[in-house]
């Protein structure tokens, strides 16, 4: 076995994953080849370094959150707003805490602006009276006080006058 084929199998050799005859061939090459021995030792160094790296513990409440998500999927949204709310809740769940706070703040601010704007736009006082009067008018009533010799008067004469029952001119 030459160095090239040994180098190709060195990783599997280090893991003890080579079949017997290959393992023996690699081992006998290693006895004679200092370069390949250095490569093997460097692989062991990589093993040691990687194994020093510890993962943090499972986040607290992980199981509860999984069960909650599972329960949500079971309550299949039939005719409810689940199809709309679930993706939003999931998206919120994926965010970090500052991002969640920012998202909630944005929604609250938008709601507040909406309420304030609605207050300003809602008809109140004189505006309200005009809007109510306008709703009570029926088309032709706008022409009610047209001068006798005018286009509006001619139009009124030609147009059929709706009866009071039909909500016509009062």
């Amino acid at each position: 076995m030459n160095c090239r084929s040994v180098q190709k199998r060195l990783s599997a050799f280090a893991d003890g994953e080579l079949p017997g005859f290959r393992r023996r061939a690699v081992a006998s090459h290693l006895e004679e080849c200092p370069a390949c021995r250095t490569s093997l030792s460097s692989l062991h160094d990589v093993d040691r370094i990687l194994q020093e790296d510890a993962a943090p513990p499972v986040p607290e409440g992980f199981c509860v959150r999984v069960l909650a998500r599972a329960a949500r999927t079971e309550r299949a949204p039939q005719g409810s707003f689940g199809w709309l709310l679930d993706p939003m809740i999931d998206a919120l769940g994926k965010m970090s805490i500052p991002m969640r706070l920012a998202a909630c703040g944005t929604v609250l601010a938008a709601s507040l602006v909406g309420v304030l704007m609605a207050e300003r736009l809602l008809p109140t006082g004189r505006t309200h009276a005009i809007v109510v009067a306008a709703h009570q008018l029926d088309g032709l009533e706008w022409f009610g006080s047209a001068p006798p010799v005018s286009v509006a008067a001619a139009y009124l004469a030609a147009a059929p006058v709706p009866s009071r029952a039909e909500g016509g001119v009062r």
Partner: protein
Amino acid sequence: MPPGPIRRRYLPFGRAPLSPGAVKPTDEERMLAVAGGDHEAFRELVLAHEHAAWSVAYRFLRDAAEAEDAAQEAFLRIFQAASRYRPTASFRTYLYRVVARICIDRAEKKHPVYTDTVPDVADPSPTPAEDLAAGERTDLVRRALDALPPKQRMAVILRYYEDLDYSGISRVLEVTVKAVEGLLGRARAALQVSLAPMRD
């Protein structure tokens, strides 16, 4: 001999009760119980395997929030597919497969890897070996792992941290044992270069 603690025995629909001596349900039996609507069995599965799912996802994604989401998604997919579950492999292998698929999909969406352009060896870090503090060492390991293509990274994680043999890794990644040998060989060659500053 004093009697042991009384343990639940799951009896999913259509299954005959087991002998009174055999008390502890296996993961595969728990899965069948989940398919029958047993939430307690699902809770026990999550508790028994949350560490495995979380640690693979965290080591791969290196972001706690994303790792938690990936691990949760894996359990959720398992829960939703419980009725289609067939105990052909161990539950742990099945879980690793789902987690690996989710993680690799996410990595490929984030940084698409085109096989023609993947370098065989990652760029070595220029950090000097002399003054590598513990934090810097961890950071270097993370960067070295992150520089690997997703499948190589997952193979390394399963081998080093989950202690799976090549056959186990091949079942998780749904590739041949020979392919696992190739993945780990290339990954280690890259890591030898990128971790060189840490070697004494």
